[in-house]
């Protein structure tokens, strides 16, 4: 029942570390963290799913919402730390067409924009 999202700058990127379960309860935390990353002026935002244990369809909807905001503002969205299962869900939902997926934070940060 717990979810946390915190923002930290890494070079040009804003990394949002996500922890716990992304479901309806994650709504406020996720959007607040994204707004914070936007406000910091990051042109690329990396969602770090390394500590996420569960994502349900409502969670997918929240991520779609964040993606929609990012696209409006011309911010590029990356993701790392997804388990094989959730990576497949990102593929099935076609989120991978709009979010660049990396295995870990190092490769996500190091990738050319």
């Amino acid at each position: 029942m717990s979810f946390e999202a915190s923002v930290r700058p890494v070079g040009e990127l804003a990394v949002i570390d996500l922890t716990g379960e992304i479901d309806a309860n994650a709504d406020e935390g996720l959007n607040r963290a994204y707004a914070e990353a936007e406000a910091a002026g990051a042109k690329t935002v990396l969602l770090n799913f390394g500590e996420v244990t569960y994502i349900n369809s409502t969670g997918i909807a929240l991520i779609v919402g964040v993606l929609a905001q990012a696209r409006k503002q011309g911010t590029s969205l990356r993701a790392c730390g997804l388990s094989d299962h959730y990576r497949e869900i990102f593929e099935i939902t076609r989120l991978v067409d709009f979010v660049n997926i990396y295995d870990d934070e190092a490769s996500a940060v190091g990738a050319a924009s």
Partner: protein
Amino acid sequence: MRTRRDGQRASPDTPTTAEPEAASGGGTASLANIAPDDPILAYFQSAPGPVEIDKLKLDSPALEALRDAGVKLAVPLVSQGELIGVLNLGPRLSEQDYSADDRKLLDNLAAQAAPALRVAQLVREQEAEARRRERYERELEIAHLIQQNFLPRHLPQLEGWTFGAFYRSMREVGGDFYDFIELPYGGVGIVIGDVTDKGVPASLVMASTRSVIRSVAQRIGQPGKVLEEVNDQLCPEMPPKMFVTCLYAVLEPHSGRMVYANAGHNLPYLKRTDCVDELRARGMPLGLLPGSNYEESEVTLDAGETVLFTTDGIAEAHDQTGEMFGCPRIIEVVTEFERGEDLRDVLLEELNRFTGAAWEQEDDITMVTLERHPYEQSDFERNEAAPITVTRLADLQIPSEPGNERLAMQRVADVVASIGLTTTRLDKLKTAVAEATMNAIEHGNQNNPELNVHITVESTEDRLTIRVVDHGGGREIPESTAPDLDLKLAGEQTPRGWGLFLIKNMVDEMHVSSDEEHHTIELVMYLGGGAPASPGGEDVI
């Protein structure tokens, strides 16, 4: 009174706790239990502080015991109004009385020790409960394993005949069994039985009964004599309060003659062209009385006739009002089913209609059918039937509160652990179950915690079937448009609406159905590969 108090021999100035459960571990001190109706318990429970044993006047055997043990001062340990122990002290080494300061110190000590002791007791109780649960789950698994290993894997293939079998266990194995025995003189032995009791004991008795019948049937031809000898062999071995009802029939395939004997089991029904006959034969259940005799009857099956053997799981199934399905309904189904239909399917369908979708299966359900082909039918069109063995792994009721889909997901994951799904497939199943349950909670049951989501988990040799049933029948199901990410990002579709889409992509089959009351979503995962068009089926062990 749940707690038990022990008075321990007190050595001077050395407080000894009389902690109820720990005391059973023994020690060197002599222990005296306090009877639950001893008045000293009520006295201790309401005492304002340490109690001077010598000054106490009570008609109490425990008080005598404490005095005999040399206890001078007893400090009751009370937590939340409940007496959970007593601290017993002998005389002071200085041989002076306990001072007011001593008592105050002891009182403070008791006030702190009591809740700590209570916590320790609770932790221990909880650990014991967890161990019990774990043992229970393991036992269930073993019982299912035994049961499944002893049910036939193949049906007899006989020219001119079609055999059918169906077995569905409930979560706790009920002890049903059936068997087909190839007999040395050309006939086929048909066995159906039911062991009283459930779980591992029942499945062990079932396994040994089956073996004894198999071996006796090889030597003896007449069913009545077979049951007689089986009974005599089983009687000395049978655990107390257990017995086995069993019907044994020998079919001569060429003539269609079937001789049978019955050890207190449900009657088989023979569907004739114009009527249904009950096949009666008298006899005591197996394992009760050595030297029992078994009446033998015989019947000849003509072309196109069918026999149905069942156990009591069908007749004794109840509907939601508590009414029993009963034998007359079975007879009705046998009367009305028509050539070309599978009697097993027809009877199950009727049973499901009767009990309703939310039924928690009460007992194993077992059926064996035997059909003599009509003359005009060529044999190679038939004999496609295989025994169907359904194991009910779980029958869950989940209250409709937001977030409970995770509970459902975890419980289902626990019960399918023994099935051997790969991690990838298990993850998919978990997501599908969580999404289906979430829909049931939100849409079907409108987040009403009074309503449960009913989840059943069943497995056969080649598939795992999970049904999620809610009370949203007779209502339109939302979320009919396929989610399209482009439209969602363009704001032309809500970001939500992924539930059914996800489920569909996680499982091998998804079926949605409704009646006036319930809405059911059925999730199917293929097991063991080789299943038709199984997306991702290749990674099944």
